[in-house]
């Protein structure tokens, strides 16, 4: 799908029905919580960035000197002029990823190579469900962060997804994360404003769903003045990280909008330990080079800016960002200057607490493909293990079924 995105993923059948109900939060309520019970500085915060559609790992972390790479991808392989070499193992970042290169040089970006799960499943839905539930090939109706929430006291602010529908990773059995809809809220003013606000009152004759419909007016119309100082305040001043080439890649800037809100709410002290944001459009079956480069450049630029905003606050050491997609893409180009669904790909982990500037996991060899696809050299659950144990401070075994390993040395504190 050319516009594969989180919104397009939504939920697998039965998933949200079985999980605990999601709370819709208003910015006002988060801002209020940030003021009334701010999270102590030093509390670790995890930001999960999901790339929907299957990012092409080979045009992200590029084996640009490997003749098999260029031979496999006539017309869509990147050459030395299209990349930024990392100086290790003849691998390079896509030239649009200037920000990530800077973070790599500063030791704040670790790249885990060849990440996937056993036995590939090329369906977007299945593969993304495997990642979000941390349960490859075995159906679970709860997400990995949701199950971490189950180990915590219930608190709707503890994990928040940006957007209007709960991403499955935040759905627990007992507890669930909340969602924060995006976009500027325009509320009617004057008489109609008063009238719509009055529609937000509950009525004894309401069914549960009618009460929920009324509450949505309440949330919208009571958009508190408290939130305005938080959101209208300029973002924390970024440091001097360079912007990426050209500064602006394509029209999809929603990732930077999402991260901008997250940065402001983190700076304000929101009691939120996990944030989930996303970007779609990575399903590049056709005319891939321009589109994929622009998208991955957006990821690099938006996250680099976000981290620089966070680093300008007193929570500089607290934030870890993890970036993943549901699968990588086929090694060989297809007939339409694109690539079809593949297997493993790189995962990025960023932040001051990351033991960065280095690779973890082996680069899958282009001369040892498995059924024409890249081998999986790292199970994604090991990265989750590091996030659960070394960032969130919980035992992995309580969150991921039958799993208790992690990537040793990925996080500095561990």
């Amino acid at each position, binding site marked *: 799908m050319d516009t594969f995105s989180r919104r397009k993923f939504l*939920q697998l*059948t039965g998933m949200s029905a079985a999980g605990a109900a999601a709370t819709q939060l208003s910015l006002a309520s988060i801002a209020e919580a940030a003021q009334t019970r701010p999270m102590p500085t030093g509390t670790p915060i995890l930001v999960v960035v999901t790339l929907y559609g299957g990012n092409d790992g080979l045009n992200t972390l590029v084996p640009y000197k490997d003749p098999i790479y260029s031979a496999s991808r006539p017309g869509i392989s990147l050459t030395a002029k299209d990349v930024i070499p990392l100086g290790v193992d003849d691998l390079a970042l896509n030239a649009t990823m200037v920000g990530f290169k800077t973070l790599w040089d500063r030791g704040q970006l670790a790249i885990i190579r060849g990440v996937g799960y056993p036995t590939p499943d090329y369906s977007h839905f299945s593969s993304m469900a495997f990642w979000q539930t941390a349960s490859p090939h075995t159906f679970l109706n709860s997400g990995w962060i949701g199950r971490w929430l189950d180990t915590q006291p219930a608190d709707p602010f503890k994990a928040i997804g940006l957007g209007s529908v709960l991403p499955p990773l935040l759905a627990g059995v007992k507890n669930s994360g909340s969602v924060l809809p995006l976009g500027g809220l325009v509320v009617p003013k004057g008489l109609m404003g008063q009238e719509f606000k009055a529609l937000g009152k509950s009525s004894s004759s309401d069914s549960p769903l009618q009460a929920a419909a009324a509450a949505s007016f309440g949330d919208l119309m009571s958009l508190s003045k408290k939130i305005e100082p938080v959101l209208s305040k300029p973002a924390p001043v970024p440091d001097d990280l360079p912007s990426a080439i050209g500064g602006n890649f394509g029209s999809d800037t929603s990732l930077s909008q999402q991260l901008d809100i997250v940065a402001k709410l983190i700076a304000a002290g929101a009691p939120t330990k996990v944030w989930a944001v996303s970007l779609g459009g990575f399903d590049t079956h056709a005319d891939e080079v321009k589109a994929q480069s622009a998208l991955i450049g957006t990821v690099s630029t938006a996250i680099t800016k976000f981290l620089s905003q966070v680093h300008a606050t007193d929570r500089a050491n607290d934030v870890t960002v993890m970036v993943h997609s549901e699968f990588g893409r086929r090694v060989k180009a297809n007939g339409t200057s694109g690539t079809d669904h593949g297997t493993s790909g790189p995962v990025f982990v960023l932040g001051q607490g990351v033991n960065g500037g280095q690779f973890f996991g082996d680069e899958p060899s282009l001369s040892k493909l498995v059924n024409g696809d890249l081998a999986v050299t790292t199970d994604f659950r090991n990265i989750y293990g590091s996030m659960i144990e070394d960032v969130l401070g919980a035992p992995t075994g309580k969150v991921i079924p039958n799993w208790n390993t992690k990537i040793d040395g990925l996080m500095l504190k561990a």
Partner: protein
Amino acid sequence: MASNPDRLVISRLINRFGFGPKPGQYASLLAMGVSAAQSLLLTPPTTDIGLTKVVEPDFPDRGDFPPSGTPERVAFETNQRSDRINLELWWLDRMVLADHGLRERITWFWHGHWATSLGKLAYARPMKIQNETLRKNALGNFKEMAQAMVIDPALMYWLDAGANIKTAPNENLARELMELFTLGVGHYSEDDVKSVARGLTGYTVDRTAGTFTFEPKRHDATTFIILGNTGSWDASSIINTLVARPDNQKFITDRLWFRLMSTSLPTPSDIASTFVNREILPAVQKIATYVTSTDPLLSQVRSPVEWFVAACRALKITPSTAQNRAQIINYLDKLGQYPFNPPNVGGWPYDEAWLNIASTQYRIGFAAFLVAQGDTSPINGLKGLTMENALTDWLGIPEFSTRTKAVIRGSGLTTAQIVSLALCSPEYVVNG
């Protein structure tokens, strides 16, 4: 509540088994009583005068995309865009203009069931062909529908079945066929997925024409096992096997119940038996008998398309000829739903997913947009209780709560403002 209990029952019937009343229809159904109303609304007519007003668009085979950067490409994409919006508005027109809503409403259900997206397909022609297949079979026999759908070019392209060859079977259609379309998750093994994929090899799709061909050379005709049955398989024999499973009987009736009646109450035990011959209409009719339940969990949030179509029926707006018609699809997109664009093969979300501050905001704007060009004559010039009663009768609302009554009695409101508030009221957004 003190009001006539028939009001709630008939409101459910006309909204769950149709797209809401046209002006005057709710009052005339109330006058005939529940039993006659149920019989009328659940019996598809042989002809529908309303549908004769629908202008039938033509979607020629537009062929392959010309190369990027050429003038032909620009013109081609313009045509593609206009085909897409014409297709979307054509179906919305049908939903709005049909006098009898059952067939369009159940076709809409099936679209969410066999969820296929124009986003990947890019061509209106095969999508329209699929839509006609769903409509033709909407109230007929599920086995016949499944036989037609497994070789539907749009569905096959959507799930990559056109590239499914015996040397490299693609499991996408095979898995969804069992998981989402016929049996439900957990009622087959991974080996069955592989086997069904093998049995479905050999088809290729021409997506611009909306046709398929079967190439025996690419088909795996060897003997293997599917769900315990050994044989040499093709699309037709696979469907026969899947649809004959008792799991299919339960799965399809569960899906109908879930979407038409309640996402939180379990399916009553006496519904599956009406589907023993896989006839859809008797199952839908049986489900409709449960509208008399007083359980508040029978409440249902109108999805954006259902809300929009009901509003257009009341306001006499024909989507394809509306002012600023492209804005209609924009609003529906912001609300998260428009025809031929399901988020994924699992179909659209439901209930609470449509209730959040973002969608509430857009609904307010959309209501004002519609009312501004709609016909509000059923309440024009009326005041007080007379106006309130005419308003609930017009829109098919059983009764306003004390909250909403207080709101629409606000002083200084214009008729248009009152209608906007009513369309956004919890009693309208949520069918009781």
